[in-house]
């Protein structure tokens, strides 16, 4: 057993709170886990060495945080610094039907909600999901009543600062016919480790609009996951924006537990310098008549490395499923690296499934077309190469968020091009 895992287990066992019974299973599973090396399929291309080398102490004090305002977004902000909730929920004016509490001071009723969600949607196979099960003491329980349409986006921010380790957890339940927008926003630059896992139970005919902004860079190690369960006729529209750091990893699971559910998942990764980003997504069609569209697009420059593993799993019973996954990549540098693996695993015959993956450079022909219209070469390259990223940004339902993101992504891209 690795030293790192051992100290996680020891610390997990020492925690005594109302979540302890829920942690027990994770602690047991961790006890039987081998520390992954390159021969473990889910960590084939991403090394955990930066994590092991990190000298961290579990965060005890939280710092002050300054959160950038997103123009026009008008969000309900819940700010974590190093995994500790800074916002005073009691000061927020919550719309009717929306209930938010922290894990630390959950009422009995909220604890019941948490019990029904905690590690119930997130599959056990995610090693760091188990770590988060064991160590996350703070976090949020968000409950949205049936039929409640929450217009105001809920933004959950976690900021990691130097030398800190943090684990936070988000549990969200949407009642039937409810709708909501949740933005999970993480950032940090300095040597730190954060894990952030969220579980969403989307009720019958409910709609969740979701964003994950994994904007950790440099030495800020982040390992997280979003895990969605869709009930009958539920709908999900999720977008992931990822930068890369020494070690940055996201696991996403979209599970169709009810018939006629619809999921759309877009992911964008823009990696420069020596950044790494690893995305593993799994779409589970357990029930019939579901639809999934997944689009993952990335640009990799300099010495960066992107890993994408997109799995579609159609269970025996999931007839009449429509599932599509496309992954497009652009490699800008000969020191960079792209590893992609779209997977199909199909056990039902009356389904339409397709996946595609490309790794390509700018097409000369298209470039020529733009040049012939008088556009400068550098501008044309930006247009062409950034265009396919921009396309996904524009698909984001929340235009305020899109407008805020665009210039950031653009300048990140231009910097990559220059190098």
């Amino acid at each position, binding site marked *: 057993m690795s030293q790192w895992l051992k100290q996680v287990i020891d610390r997990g066992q020492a925690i005594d709170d109302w979540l302890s019974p829920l942690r027990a299973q994770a602690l047991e599973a961790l006890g039987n886990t081998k520390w992954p090396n390159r021969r473990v399929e889910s960590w084939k291309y991403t090394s955990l060495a930066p994590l092991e080398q990190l000298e961290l102490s579990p965060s005890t004090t939280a710092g002050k945080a300054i959160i950038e305002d997103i123009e026009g977004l008008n969000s309900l902000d819940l700010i974590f610094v190093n995994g500790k909730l800074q916002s005073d929920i009691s000061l927020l004016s919550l719309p009717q039907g929306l209930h938010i509490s922290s894990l630390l001071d959950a009422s009995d009723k909220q604890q019941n909600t948490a019990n029904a969600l905690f590690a119930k949607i997130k599959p056990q196979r995610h090693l760091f999901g188990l770590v988060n099960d064991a160590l996350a003491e703070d976090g949020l329980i968000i409950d949205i009543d049936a039929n409640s349409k929450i217009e105001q986006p809920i933004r959950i921010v976690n900021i990691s600062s130097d030398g800190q380790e943090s684990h936070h957890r988000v549990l969200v339940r949407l009642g039937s016919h409810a709708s909501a927008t949740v933005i999970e926003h993480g950032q940090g630059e300095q040597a730190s480790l954060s894990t952030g896992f969220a579980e969403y139970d989307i009720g019958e005919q409910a709609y969740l609009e979701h964003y994950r902004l994994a904007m950790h860079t440099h030495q800020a190690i982040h390992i997280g996951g979003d895990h969605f369960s869709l009930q009958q006729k539920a709908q999900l529209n999720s977008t992931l924006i990822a930068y890369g750091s020494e070690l940055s990893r996201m696991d996403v699971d979209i599970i169709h537990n009810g018939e006629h559910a619809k999921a759309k998942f877009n992911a964008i990764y823009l990696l420069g310098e020596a950044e790494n980003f690893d995305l593993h997504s799994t779409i589970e069609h357990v029930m019939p008549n579901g639809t999934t569209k997944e689009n993952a697009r990335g640009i990799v420059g300099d010495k960066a490395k992107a890993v994408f593993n997109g799995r579609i799993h159609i269970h025996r019973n999931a007839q009449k499923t429509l599932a599509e996954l496309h992954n497009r990549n652009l490699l800008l540098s000969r020191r960079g690296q792209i590893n992609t693996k779209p997977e199909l695993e199909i056990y039902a015959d009356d389904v339409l499934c397709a996946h*595609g993956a490309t790794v390509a450079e700018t097409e000369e022909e298209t470039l020529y077309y733009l040049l012939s219209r008088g556009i400068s070469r550098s501008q044309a390259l930006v247009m062409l190469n950034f265009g396919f990223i921009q396309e996904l940004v524009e698909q984001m339902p929340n235009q305020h968020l899109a407008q805020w993101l665009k210039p950031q992504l653009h300048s990140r891209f231009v910097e990559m091009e220059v190098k």
Partner: protein
Amino acid sequence: MSEQLDQALSRKYDAGFVSDIESETFPPGLDEDVIRRISAMKEEPEWMLEWRLRAYNNWLDMEEPDWAHVHYPKIDFNAISYYSAPKSMADKPQSLDEVDPELLRTYEKLGIPLYEQEMLAGVAVDAVFDSVSVVTTYRAKLEEAGVIFCPISEAVHKYPELVKKYLGSVVPRSDNYFAALNSAVFTDGSFVYIPKGVRCPMELSTYFRINEENTGQFERTLIVAEEGSHVSYLEGCTAPQRDENQLHAAVVELVVMDDAQIKYSTVQNWYPGDENGKGGIYNFVTKRAICHTNAKVSWTQVETGSAITWKYPSCILKGDNSVGEFYSVALTRGRQQADTGTKMIHLGKNTKSTIISKGISAGNSNNTYRGLVSMGAKAEGARNFTQCDSLLIGDRCGAHTFPYIESRNPSAIVEHEATTSKVSDDQMFLCQQRGLDPEKAVSMIVNGFCKEVFKELPMEFAVEAGKLLEISLEGSIG
């Protein structure tokens, strides 16, 4: 509809007869002594024995791989016999007239009339029965062209320098578990050498058959195509119907020098086991080619047999402008499990690869495409195109696609597409409305699905492959 299809798919295995031939077979078990005995039986030189023993020691240190999407009980390598030769081989036949007539009848049942092939098709055949090369036809004509086509055991004696130089040069002794095992115990196989600038005057062909109970077959094929040469090589396989699983762990190495081309076609129809998954061949095969500048390798395979198929014919595109192609049809039914695909390793500049894979799953089977396309840092301008299509027949089977794509060069382009579909009720209805019975309709639709691959096969093989699919899909329609 799917019930009809199921019935259509539950046909009997046509090549499942057992030949009554007296054999000399080693008792089951594997240790250094067995390897020494194999080597001694073949009167091998010392270097060959040493090579085998080193491979055996590599193998002992290795673990059986478990990453493939297949499930089977652990193989007991000590329950297998590692050598079996028809007794009448003891004094080797000098011509077909001296071959055991029963053995020739076996080939006839398989549809490989040696005489006919000699006379009509002009195909040179090296038939491997269990572990020993039976006879190599059409030698004279090949010798004239300077082409060497002989059992590898003979090549060890006659062309030791060539064998020493190339054996293990593409698939090293310790490459993987099954390749290491093969290196230790391989009993026979074919050796082909095409001299510089020579276009092989005929298609070369090998038929493999496992006859004896509890025997493993470990053949080793080595083809060396010198600069500017061309050769097309065909390989066919069958095995009798037995309740026990039989192991087939072959290694094929292709060395393709500058400007040379090898086309390697396989029709594999090993016994797949019965409908409950009893018996059948475990087919664990390592096939790899190394391509030098401007060289081209084309792997075409039609896989309809075996209980388990574990096979990834690969190309190392080392030389600039070299080309690798992989065309595959894999049909699984009953309880068959196939995990097959290819690896295209692009190292040189402007290297190109094409992968077309058609998987058909029926019954309770599982059919997996697994592939790797790797673009090395120096593979300027390299291109790959991959198309993987799966066809599902019935709702108890599985179709899976696991393509690995690794790119380290910004000017390389990789495109991968995969789709799944089923034989639709509308297609069946149209065919039947035009007077075709359901069996014919299914086989026609499936053949259409596989067309892009069949057109890559040499003519007579394409016909055989089409028929094989048809037979596989044949049965009583209610």
